[in-house]
């Protein structure tokens, strides 16, 4: 019997996200963003992180605002429903943050190369664009078979991929459904995987549907029970997107003082015991719950 990987959020972040780590997050785009884990990095005052992800919504902006980040490798950083994000803008414009500009496809290929144990992956995107000026991980190459010009995307192998899933067991097997984005590649490319989950379930539940397992348990270093751990982003089967939270954050983060007030309200009080659901409150959680259930029909893996 393998040992349990189930630990508290603070233990997991303390052990697997050291200062200076390269961290992949937000790999499922607008859904399943690991806000709980990101906020724990803010509480632990992590420094000099490199953040890796396609779009991240506001999570990258929050870590930048809290002073945790020195470098970002991403296709887009902002607030999806409003546009530009203020702390990110301030940090880049004041020269405090390095950005390596990807497109969604080049970022996916960088992680794919990492996942496949390759030094690069070819792509046909970005050719002629200025992404080549602001990302040393993009070069052109000539296809040895066709002579076509291709983009070579240098591999990214994060120190840790932080992912939020619907359910996991104590060994790190997990079910994730919805749009997966680059989650699978990120988990396979990373040295470690830190997994937060809405529910901890028996292994039997996960083994009943192995197609839905996002990455095999042996690749996972820590499992954390973090209900509402992706709020305000949506989690298929659990809760909807909390648009108001994104709008509130946009207003508050306009100034550094406002950002601090947001952090004092939503990050600091959660503490070591992970009291986020209490902070969120029953009414707000109820309003976000799934209204129209649509369970899938089970499949048969028998023999």
């Amino acid at each position, binding site marked *: 019997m393998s040992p349990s990987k189930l630990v508290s959020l603070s233990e997991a972040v303390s052990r697997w996200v050291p200062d200076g780590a390269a961290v992949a997050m937000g790999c499922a785009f607008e859904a399943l963003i690991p806000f709980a884990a990101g906020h724990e990095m803010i509480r632990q005052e992590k420094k000099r992180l490199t953040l890796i992800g396609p779009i991240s919504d506001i999570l990258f902006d929050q870590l930048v605002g809290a002073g945790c980040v020195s470098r970002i490798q991403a296709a887009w*950083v902002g607030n999806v429903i409003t546009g530009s994000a203020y702390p990110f803008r301030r940090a880049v414009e004041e020269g405090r943050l390095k950005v390596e500009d990807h497109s969604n496809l080049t970022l996916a290929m960088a992680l794919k190369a990492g996942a496949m144990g390759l030094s690069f992956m070819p792509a046909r995107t970005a050719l002629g664009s200025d992404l080549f000026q602001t990302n040393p991980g993009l070069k052109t190459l000539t296809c040895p078979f066709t002579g076509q010009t291709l983009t070579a995307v240098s591999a990214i192998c994060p120190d840790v991929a932080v992912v939020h899933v619907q359910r996991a067991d104590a060994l790190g097997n997990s079910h994730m459904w919805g*749009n997966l984005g680059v989650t699978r590649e990120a988990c396979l490319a990373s040295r470690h995987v830190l997994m937060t989950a809405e529910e901890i379930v028996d292994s039997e539940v996960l083994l009943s549907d192995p197609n839905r397992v996002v990455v095999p348990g042996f690749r996972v270093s820590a499992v954390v029970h973090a209900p509402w751990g992706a709020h305000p982003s949506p989690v298929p089967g659990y809760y909807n997107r909390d648009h108001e939270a994104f709008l509130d954050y946009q207003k508050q983060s306009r100034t550094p003082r406002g950002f601090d007030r947001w952090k004092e309200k939503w990050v600091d009080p959660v503490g070591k015991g992970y009291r986020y659901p209490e902070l969120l409150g029953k009414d707000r959680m109820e309003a976000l719950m799934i209204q129209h259930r649509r369970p899938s029909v089970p499949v048969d893996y028998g023999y």
Partner: protein
Amino acid sequence: MEDAYTPVELMVTAAAREIADEEVVFVGMRIPLLGFLLAKHTHAPHAVGVYELGVVRDTPAPSSILTMGDLPNLSGASWLANTDDTMGLLQRGLVDVSFIGGAQVDRFGNLNTSYIGGWRSPGTRLPGSGGACDLACLAKRHIIVMVHERRRFKKRVDYMTSPGYGEGPGWRAQAGLPRGGPSAVITTLGIFRFDEDSCEMVLASVHPGVSVETVRSQTGWPLKVAPHLLQTPVPTEAELAVIRRFDPEGYWTGSKKESIPFVEEARSRKKKNIP
């Protein structure tokens, strides 16, 4: 007799009319998303939507959404997969049309969504490419949706996030791009097409109440005008009903006070009443 409509509703309608039935459409957010939904409900019921986060759906989401990852957009999808799956469709050449927005555009349709004032010491940092660069490089054609202001319509963009026709004829092929290029630019003032020989943006249609002089004054290069200049058709009542069904609070189309910068700028032009 037409209803009152907002400038953004006019743009959504124009975007929808760029989509033909049975086309595979790479759908972005905001105006393009509404344009796709409108097309599905009017002249293009068999259009298929592909979303960069790994979603394919051929029916509209069952209720209104603000991001493509909202749960109604996943419920009843025809395929939930990975980014490289949907990006693979695009890279293989299976996407007919895509839509992208930008902060700056130039006369060859190059777009900037990354740095204002150049990247070495940017005056303003914008969010970046997301999937825009991929859509501009790899779709069979793409359509640009923009607020029309002189500071945005530049002779040359400060940074080329998403290539249009680069520096003119032949540039895309020389760069190694397999296909594509912008086919139209839909702005708050008019609709533009690209000259086949020069690859330059040409004013093809002005929105009701907008003069060619106004468009010229808001454009940072000597703008060419099509010999048969059209007036953009206004949205029909049926089209407006569909748009308002999917944007019931006017979050994107601008009938609600609290809203996004894009809508705020467009809304400064206020609702128009067409006699």
